[in-house]
């Protein structure tokens, strides 16, 4: 099946799926892909954007179209490069950073028109309702698993959860999900920051040797589970996606911090892991505020996917875990 690639949590997967193509979230991040991407953009571009660019270039024939948004400057500009270098149709929507619901709604309407034209299908109310139901059900299954991460004691590793949600992101929502229970009383931490990519499972594994990630606000993990579409119409989609817990790029972004504060409290976390990719402006600029805003110890991990200093990282994670244990 042909893919319709997309980059942003504000892009409604239901609309993409209505085309009949498989929605495929561009969440690649791997050192070789990233290095390949340096033929097209500078070395100081986000490693995830470089990886995605390479993935697209290496798999052009798989993609029927690509949909992006203005959520992040580099990822928006990635599509400029794609447009120059390939024939893949590219649709970039305005995702307003300020509170401009009309812009968002108009852009979703525009996207619908484009995808109808691309697919040759009319997105009828029934079709929309069907897709909403399908994807809501998928989300609901994953929510049940996600809830088990947050129980006390935690019952599910985020390492395993990540593999499950990868299916969702890659559009495989019919596959059965089986996750082995893994009970743990390790220090409970909340993960936020740059997206955890498909290839980054090892970092989760490393973290969860000493810690237990019980919750996150991350584009590669559970963030999409905040989408709950009650009204099974296009309006319902717009409403749910626009009003999801805000991204850190929103201006002003104090609501983001409020949301995270509540989540951390709800999940009874005692620490935060802030994972950022090199040159990820959106998160790197906010790290100092993250360290002071929540009154929790923060472990900062920065990466370009090369994972060159794994042993050093292991030591840091160990020390962080020890410190958290000593506080409880």
């Amino acid at each position, binding site marked *: 099946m042909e893919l319709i690639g997309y980059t942003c949590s504000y892009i409604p997967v239901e609309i993409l799926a209505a085309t009949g193509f498989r929605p495929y979230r561009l969440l690649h991040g791997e050192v070789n892909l990233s290095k390949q991407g340096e*033929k*097209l*953009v*500078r*070395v*100081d*571009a*986000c490693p995830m*954007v470089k990886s995605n660019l390479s993935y697209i270039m290496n798999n052009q024939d798989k993609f029927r179209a690509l949909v992006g948004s*203005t959520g*992040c*400057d*580099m990822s*928006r*500009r*990635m599509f*400029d*490069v794609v*447009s*120059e270098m390939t024939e893949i*149709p*590219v649709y*970039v929507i*305005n995702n*307003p*950073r*300020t509170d*401009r619901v*009309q*812009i968002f709604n*108009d852009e979703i309407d*525009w996207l619908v*028109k*484009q995808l109808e*034209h*691309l697919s040759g299908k009319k997105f009828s109310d029934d079709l929309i309702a069907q897709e909403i139901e399908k994807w809501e059900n998928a989300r609901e299954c994953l929510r049940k698993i996600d809830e088990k991460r947050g129980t006390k004691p935690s019952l599910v590793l985020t390492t395993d959860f990540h593999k499950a949600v990868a299916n969702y992101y890659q559009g495989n929502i019919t596959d059965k999900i089986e996750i082995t229970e893994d009970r743990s009383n390790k220090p409970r931490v909340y993960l936020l920051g740059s997206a955890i990519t498909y290839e980054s499972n090892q970092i989760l594994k490393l973290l969860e040797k000493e810690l237990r990630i019980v919750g996150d606000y991350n584009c590669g993990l559970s963030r999409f589970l905040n989408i709950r579409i009650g009204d099974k119409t296009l309006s319902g989609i717009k409403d749910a996606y626009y009003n999801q817990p805000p991204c850190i*790029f929103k*201006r*002003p*972004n104090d609501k983001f911090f409020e949301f995270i504060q509540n989540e951390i409290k709800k999940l009874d976390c005692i620490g935060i892991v802030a994972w950022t990719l*090199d*040159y990820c*402006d*959106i998160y*790197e*600029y*906010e*790290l*100092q*505020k993250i360290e002071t805003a929540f009154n929790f110890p923060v472990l900062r991990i920065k990466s370009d996917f090369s994972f060159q200093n794994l042993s050093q990282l292991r030591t840091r994670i160990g020390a962080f875990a020890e410190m958290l244990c000593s506080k409880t």
Partner: protein
Amino acid sequence: MFENLAPKKIDLKEWSRQFRSLDTDFINKFFYYKNNDWGRYLFPPATFMVYGARQLKHLKLDNSLTSLRLWGFSFNESERLFRAKQSGKKVIATMGDLGTVPVIVMAFPGCIPFYPDCTWWTPFFNESNVLLDRASEMGVPEASCFVRSALAAFDKKAYFPKPDLLFASTGASCDDYSCIMQMVGNLGYDIIWLEMPFRRHTAKYFVGDKYKTTNQGLEYPERFEDYLVTEYKKVWAKMVELTEINDLELLRENIKKTNRLRQLVENIKNLTYEVEIAPFPALEMMVIEFGNLYGYADFDEWLDICEMIYETIKERTRKGIGVLKPDAIPIAWVMPTADPIVLNLVEDLGGRVVATEYVINQALAQIEEQGDPFNALARSFLNASLIGSTEERVRRITEKVEQGRVRGVIITNMLGASHCSMETRLIEKMLSKVPVLSLDVPSPLGITEQLKTRIAAFMETLR
């Protein structure tokens, strides 16, 4: 003395010597805000150097009286902003949009817009990492745009007064800017956020949207104009609240005045870049272009200075004289350099800037004077350099390359700046009919011999 001087670029000492020949009465003739008590600004580079602009010891500047006025006026800006506030004017910070919001602000009498973003040059003119270090302490990553100086400037409160209002434009913006503006908000400044839409041009596979074209030939969905109109009306409403003045005629008048400046600068550029011998140096030309953003906090005086600049350039052109050799190699420059000395360097090594893309296309475009002024502003802003595709951004340079008017292109980048990292390779590819040199501008005092050698080698290639 000045009338008979052959044009050339001179250093600080020579400028001091020239300045000494000026009558005190003449020096006192030029002042800002029409205040001849504290508003004088005709001072030599040495004045500003004594007060910390250390790079003036190394820069070479044009030797005309016109240039003296330009530099005295632009270097005086920080003091001017404080004096504005002291004398009861409203000082309005505008960030991110680079050129349109000040047009609205200046329509209100006694209101002075300025761009804190322009403090990105301060570390370089001062040859100092004070602001950049402070930004790092505040959590800004070191590999990022030098606009991070603005955050430190807000924190220190020593580079401009506390603004009466602060407008920050985000959306299809450079992320470094957007993050800096958020951090300014975190300091407790009350920010009025404005949304800049991504200017999505049409594609053969698009349907539905009605497209229009700006006066620079750039396509955009018609409804985007309305989005911007909403934002500009928000600005207007805030200004009305602040000043209790509400007169759209003032906006129309100010649009006309803005257009006068923009046309003047266009004429200056056309003349300077077309004639055989460069009549004015590239560094001064960069200052002139950026003056379009807000007139360096006294629009009327800046307009007057530009008129003088134009006369000087016309005069030099008429006489067939200039500051560079006739065989100076014509190059295009993409991205303004944060370090002014790079422009000096390129000229010293035989280059001549004849085309620029300084991320401020929106501040160069004329604004329609008929019809609704907010729509006119919106249409003008939709010419912005950074809100659309890279191809659109460098189109004018591409044309010059294809016409054979430039022999090489220099792109100045900053390590870690979001749009630099993504656009540069694409720009290199688009302009690849001629040699392209991409330079990372290092932090202050970071220009190495290696960098100079690269530029020299590039100029040799072009020769």
